[in-house]
């Protein structure tokens, strides 16, 4: 399927693509740590809620796109036509079974998990796994696609993730069945739709902004102004960590850690005024906070 994999990239291009994803993981880890460690019990409530809000947003976006293109809503379409970010080369999985109703999959190497470990946030990665997949896949399937995630790499004693998804016609209303399965829509003509993803940087910028936005929103909703302070602090720490990682990367590729290098590797735009998404994701001073706490800190750390 064209446009969905990293494709034939140079190692440098691959590294930047990988960093887009890693950057998302760093961001999640720092924000989650702030809520979980500083926010106490209500912080955990906020964290779980934020993940679910993020998952719902992604799922609704994908489902809307598929329905607009007359694509059925079922298990394979979620993973193929519904893709909203490119697959990546470091990830290792095995799909044992996939049809319109089921998918049985194991993941043996997950770079999300590896980055959570790197940020000493494996336990928070586990919370992500526990909340995200249920909420995202479930929402996509009219709240009726069931996720059985019996094992995850983010659990201390596990060495793989085990997913078993079920999406049964019996769960659905007549209209949902028609929208989900060809056999319940006799006149259906396959639109031969193929997802055309924007470039990797844009894909991850969207996810980056969304997870940040919902973390902030849930923090404010559950913890009030204190929650906003936790997020602001976490953004500064995350910017410092990004600066360290980008410096290491620049050194390894014998590049100057300048604005061009940072913008190649960082998914989001450092000049926030150039990013149109902030218009929609603007609540709670999200744009202002990211500029002051993340962008300015990162620039300061790197002397840009």
């Amino acid at each position, binding site marked *: 399927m064209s446009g969905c994999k990293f494709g034939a990239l140079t190692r440098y291009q691959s590294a930047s693509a990988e960093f887009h994803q890693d950057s998302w993981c760093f961001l999640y880890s720092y924000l989650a740590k702030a809520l979980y460690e500083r926010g106490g*019990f209500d912080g*955990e*409530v906020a*964290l*779980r809620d934020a993940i679910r809000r993020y998952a719902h947003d992604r799922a609704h976006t994908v489902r809307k796109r598929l329905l607009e293109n007359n694509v059925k809503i079922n298990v394979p379409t979620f993973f193929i036509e519904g893709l909203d970010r490119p697959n990546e080369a470091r990830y290792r999985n095995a799909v*044992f*079974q996939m049809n319109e109703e089921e998918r*049985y999959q194991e993941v043996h190497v997950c770079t999300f998990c590896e980055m959570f470990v790197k940020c000493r946030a494996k336990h928070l990665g586990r919370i992500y796994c*526990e909340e995200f997949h*249920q909420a995202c896949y479930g929402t996509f399937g009219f709240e009726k696609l*069931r*996720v*059985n*995630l*019996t*094992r995850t790499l983010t659990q201390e*004693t596990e060495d793989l993730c*085990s*997913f*078993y998804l*079920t999406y*049964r*016609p*019996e*769960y659905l209303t007549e209209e949902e069945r028609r929208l989900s399965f060809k056999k319940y829509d006799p006149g259906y003509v396959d639109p031969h739709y193929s997802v055309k993803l924007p470039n990797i940087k844009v894909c991850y910028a969207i996810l980056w902004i969304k997870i940040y936005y919902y973390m902030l929103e849930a923090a404010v909703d559950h913890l009030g102004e204190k929650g906003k302070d936790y997020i602001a602090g976490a953004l500064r720490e995350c910017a410092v960590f990004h600066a360290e990682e980008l410096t290491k990367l620049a050194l390894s590729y014998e590049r100057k850690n300048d604005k061009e290098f940072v913008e190649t590797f960082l998914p989001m735009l450092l000049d926030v005024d150039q990013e149109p998404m902030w218009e929609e994701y603007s609540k709670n001073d999200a744009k202002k906070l990211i500029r002051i706490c993340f962008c300015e800190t990162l620039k300061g750390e790197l002397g840009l």
Partner: protein
Amino acid sequence: MSFKKIPCDDRAQDKFAKLYIRLAMALDEEFDLNGCIVVRNAVKLYGKTLGGLRRNQLVAEDRKVNLKTMTKGGSPLPCGLRTDKEWLRVETQEMWVNVSTCPLAEVWKSEDACKLGEMYCEEFYNAYYKEAATDKCQVNLGQRITYWGENIYHRCRLSVYLRPANLNAEQRKAAFEEWDTSYKSKKEAVPEKYDYDAMTKLMYACMMRCAQEELGQECVEKMKKASLDCAKSVQDNSLVGFICDMTEESLRDFVVTFDM
């Protein structure tokens, strides 16, 4: 934590599995999709009834209703010496178990009806845990014994989570000692009740109720006949009598007031 093998009437458990699968097969064959909807709804009702019973049992003994108290002294899994369970984790918030031999699956395989057997597993555990604990309980059931594809696993894995952070204050208090400061901890397990003769009757009642609601009298008559044939084939006179005696109204009462 130690586990006792729960006394189990193997013969009755097999009869339960047989009645379920014969009714599921009849519904699938006669009514296709709508029949399968009846099967799933019936299993949900059956699971909810047993989950509610377990919750009431724990509450009556002044126990918190969480994954540890529910599992200690029993579980909704198949029972008896023929069921091989490996308890990996049993905590108040987390329960993981592998099941590597299952007498229910054996019956379903012998009837060549694994897909319909899976319907039971898919619906029952979700309904049971969500009714016993709360609907915020997350039930994950994967790696099925009943799956005959090119699968490397011949076992079921059940991973259930009950997180205080996903519950409201009242639910937290009902589930966890640490959220109820006045609560005095009790160590003894409350054994789960198992009576597969009664549970077989409950499954029949749930099937009939859902058949009536979803597909009406024609379906009810066919299910009654299939149930009688099954009960006679396993030589269960008590079940035959139950099927013959119960009216639509008395079946509804039977489900609502079910106890063992």
